[in-house]
């Protein structure tokens, strides 16, 4: 009865769904800025309080310095429990410096809740699917990115005590905010002609360019702001961190000598362990988006050329969604991680696909092409800073007396630039990426039991053929899940008659059936492919009405009464 209701809701949602009535005034955040952790937490709690029937907020773990990792579950309470529906899982800030993944997550929560009942397509998705969101995976390091001197690339990793330079001391030579401006920028030094590899860019004196041809250089680039704290002749060679969360997942994991930044064993650290265990506890997750930055990519696995190839039918489903994404996200390119970006073992997307059988993308948010709508050179990045941010992004070079290098200059881009979009671009970035998430969720498998064919073979013996249609692009079970035996296949059962034989119809017209040799009353089906119908065959002994049930781990449970006559 409940399930029939669910279907009814799904079918009529476009015209009979009502707006969600908030219990109190929901938050209305602006999406032209970044939110430090405390503000994100406050917003998440406010959404949970405003939409108590729809939003569940739970702590799923603690970061390396005790910060709570929050998970949000959004589901329509009237269409059944969250775990009974196909789900999309979305996370952000796995890399702490890839900051605006969190804001895209917030945008998704805000947009979905406020537009349910208003926008038909969104409403349909929300009626039949569950949305899980973990906005801040690498939560402790993300906090530090806001509260401590940072760069566009630091802090990035998990909180981990690693002796980067293997000298027996840990984190003894970090970056130093030498000029005390709250930013770690870069250092350069003017030297006598011939002693440097760089010269001042004739087009913009703020930039250095490598010497070419027969030129002599008079500048050294000295890297990020810092000193040789431990007197070992190296600067900033043992900074806090370096276990890269996106190299710690279990599928295709490789140790540190093969994959830089890996942990000692997969999912050793609490942040990514929490994500992996969340995935394990929610087998209904069939779609995944893990937001990173930057460069403008829609990436999928495999992360390494040596990994198992993705089966063809799964690749087709990926391609359909990824290629459409390229249109929805101007300048973004869809492709495979190892061939489009670089080899990376042990990433989120590989794990969700190779372990849980879910179709996972990583979007690399933000691309310099959005500055002037072409490939941005360093000169153009500075022009953008000057003309479109009135100089907000850039710290002009200032002289500094360095204990080791002597007279140097310190300056460069601030930590919230380069990888993160400027505020006025951020809302568009959020909206387009959330639209891609919703497009992905739109294609979560949607099953319908179609009109069955019932043929009387002899008194009390019936041949029943039931087509099950999946009218969306993702299958109800990934092919990789059958190959690797990741979870139970879909299960078709009949109540009210004895099942004499069962199988999957290969060709309805030529009467070809692949029988299940044993235990016909539990017909196991390796999923309904995307945008196809699969017809199931039953030879039944009995009379009257039967109940046919199709139960998919990923796509939900559906029943239909069938009269044997």
């Amino acid at each position: 009865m409940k399930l029939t209701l669910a279907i009814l809701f799904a079918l009529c949602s476009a015209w009979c769904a009502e707006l969600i009535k908030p219990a109190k005034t929901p938050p209305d955040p602006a999406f032209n800025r970044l939110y430090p952790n405390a503000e994100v937490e406050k917003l998440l709690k406010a959404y949970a309080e405003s939409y108590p029937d729809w939003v569940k907020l739970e702590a799923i773990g603690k970061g390396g310095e005790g910060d709570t990792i929050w998970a949000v579950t959004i589901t329509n309470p009237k269409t059944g429990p969250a775990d009974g529906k196909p789900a999309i899982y979305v996370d952000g800030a796995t890399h702490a410096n890839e900051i605006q993944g969190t804001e895209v997550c917030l945008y998704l929560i805000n947009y979905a809740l406020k537009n349910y009942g208003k926008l038909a397509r969104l409403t349909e998705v929300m009626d039949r699917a569950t949305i899980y969101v973990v906005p801040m995976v690498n939560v402790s390091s993300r906090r530090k990115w806001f509260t401590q001197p940072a760069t566009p690339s630091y802090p990035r990793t998990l909180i981990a005590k690693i002796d980067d330079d293997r000298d027996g001391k840990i984190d003894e030579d970090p970056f130093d905010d030498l000029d005390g401006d709250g930013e770690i920028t870069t250092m350069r030094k003017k030297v006598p002609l011939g002693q440097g590899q760089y010269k001042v860019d004739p087009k913009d004196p703020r930039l250095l360019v490598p010497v070419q041809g027969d030129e002599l250089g008079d500048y050294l680039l000295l890297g990020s702001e810092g000193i040789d704290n431990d007197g070992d002749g190296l600067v900033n060679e043992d900074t806090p961190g370096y276990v890269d969360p996106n190299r710690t997942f279990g599928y295709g994991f490789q140790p540190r000598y093969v994959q830089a930044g890996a942990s000692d064993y997969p999912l050793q650290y609490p942040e990514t362990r929490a994500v992996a265990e969340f995935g394990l506890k929610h087998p209904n997750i069939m779609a995944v988006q893990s937001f990173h930055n930057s460069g403008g990519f829609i990436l999928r696995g495999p992360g390494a050329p040596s990994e198992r190839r993705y089966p063809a039918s799964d690749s087709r489903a990926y391609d359909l969604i990824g290629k459409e994404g390229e249109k929805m996200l101007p300048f973004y390119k869809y492709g495979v991680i190892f061939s489009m970006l670089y080899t990376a073992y042990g990433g989120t997307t590989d794990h969700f696909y190779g372990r849980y059988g879910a179709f996972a993308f990583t979007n690399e948010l933000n691309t310099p092409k959005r500055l002037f709508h072409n490939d941005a050179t360093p000169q153009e990045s500075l022009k953008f800073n000057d003309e479109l941010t009135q100089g907000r992004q850039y710290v002009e070079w200032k002289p500094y007396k360095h204990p080791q290098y002597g007279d140097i200059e310190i300056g460069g881009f601030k930590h919230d630039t380069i990888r993160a979009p400027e505020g006025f671009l951020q809302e568009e970035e959020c909206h387009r990426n959330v639209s891609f998430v919703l497009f992905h969720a739109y294609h979560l498998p949607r099953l319908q039991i179609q009109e069955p064919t019932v043929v009387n073979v002899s008194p009390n013996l019936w041949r029943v053929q039931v087509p099950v249609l999946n009218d969306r692009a993702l299958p109800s079970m990934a092919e990789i899940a059958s190959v690797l035996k990741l979870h139970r296949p879909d299960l078709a059962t009949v109540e009210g008659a004895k099942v004499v034989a069962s199988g999957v119809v290969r060709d309805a017209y030529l009467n070809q059936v692949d029988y299940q040799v044993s235990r016909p009353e539990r017909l196991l089906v390796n999923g309904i492919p995307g945008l196809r119908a699969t017809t199931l065959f039953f030879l039944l002994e009995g009379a009257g009405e039967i109940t046919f049930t199709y139960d998919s781990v990923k796509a939900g449970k559906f029943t239909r009464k069938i009269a044997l006559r």
Partner: protein
Amino acid sequence: MKTMKYFALLVATATVGLGQYATFAEAERKLADLARLNPEVMSLESIGTSAGGRKIYAVRVAARGTVLPEARPAVFVGANLVGYHNAGTQAALGLVEQLLLRKGDLLLATRTFYIVPMLNPDAHDSYFAPVKLRYGLNAGKLDRDRDGLVGEDGVNDLNGDGRITRMRLADPNGPYLPDPADARVLKRADPLKGEKGLYQLYSEGGDDDRDGSYNEDPVGGARPDKNFAHGWADDDPESGPFPGSEPETRAVMDYVLARRNIAVALVFGPANNLLTMPRGSGPALDIGQVRVTPQPQMAQALGIEARSYSVEELLPILQNSPTAQQFTGGVSRESIASLLGAGPAAAPSAEDLRYYEALASDYKKLLEKGGLDFKRDGAQSAAGGLQNWLYYHYGAMVVELDIWGVPKKPAAGGLTGPSADVMAYIDKEAPQGFVPWTSVTLPDGTKAEVGGLDPFVEIAPPAGELARAVAAHAGFVQDLAGKLAAVKILSTEAKQLSPGVWQVKASAGNTGFLPTHTQHAVRARTWLPVRLSVSLPGGVSLVSGKTQVASERLTGGLGQLKGEWLVRAAAGTKLSFTVSSQNAGDDRQEIILQ
């Protein structure tokens, strides 16, 4: 009085320990007793909880010495991860007892022993169960055959003999037939020899869930011995949802990762790496043979062509490249291999195997002396098991030993191969070890025969043999503890070059038998290098350079680490040199500039 009691108990437990198998509860009690009676050298802690809620115990044996136990070179022993290798647990317990008898010896004052005797507590008691079976699952929940029903089709003791053996079903298309040399044994039919199969072979038990498969979904969770990351099988539900998912595997990994003073590790499990050298599962990728093909972006960044190179060939090209330096944090053959995607090693390094061979020769002598067979073959360590993880990922010198196996039978016609040894052993020593084939009827009416080898006959020696094997292995571990690498300052020298400027030199070496690092660890870089440094008192400085030099590996006898510094100091200044390692000790020497 107290001493008397201690000895009485030690003798009593020693007898039980060497000759009999202990249940989990008995072993737990015994460990608690030993710890209570020997507080000055033994400590017992729980390092985790199994899926079934049982404690995973770790013993530390170390006497008071000049170096704290957690900083001394240590030996790690882990036993019975597989769950049915109870002989391994006995060997670990026997080792603890043997060590406790050496309380006052230098060995315990200079070494630390970390021993985890029961790595898979949930499976430990299958040897003692009313129906004995080889069982390796923890007490988690797993739908092994992915049919939506959990633990619905395990084995059944069809003939009621209290043990799970084999079951054969007559089938004209079956692959097995009785071996003409011994009809008790089934062999695979070879169609090229005109042989025709007569049977299908299964473990003992009916098709409880009528799905057409026998015993495919027993009660229980994952197998911890398949749950480690090296060689982990992604298509076997028993290996766990991901490597390191199980509490048992995590506990032991966290334990050894927190103890980088471990110099050598032993796994007591079903394989034997010293009777048969570990083969691995693919190429060793010793650094001299590694070829790499940099990806285009990387090649561009490094300013090299994107083609295939040997690491040797790249070393001179990248040695002085600032970009390569920045990417690797130190250009070496090993770091180039890592940077450019040489991939993982799948077999032990040839250099490490030389040490395995040397240890094997000592080991075999010890077995011979103990009256144990040393000519038999040893099984290979399990993919996804602890031994492989310790070697390939953790980076330790590690040996897996099975303690005991069916002795090799002198060739004398009849059966050939491993079953010849087993049947000869059964006929001579263990007549109960073979269950004659007898007819049974399965619940669904299927006719079958049950029989074959006792589940433990090949892996659990009888009391006398067990005692000898335990004693021999306890001896081997202690001998091994005497062979560990030990770093020492070998020479120091100071020469005044001009008033107030001194050239000082020091050299350090490894005076032990084993190297400070495995060759594989040089690549895996899981241990810090051996470091030789000069400490400068206030007011003394180097003319230039760094205070520390390092070496990734010092072999016993041969390898030396040399440091040379220019120091600005007054005559009469005292300088000190320190050589430091994580698991081969430290040494310090002073020199007065004069």
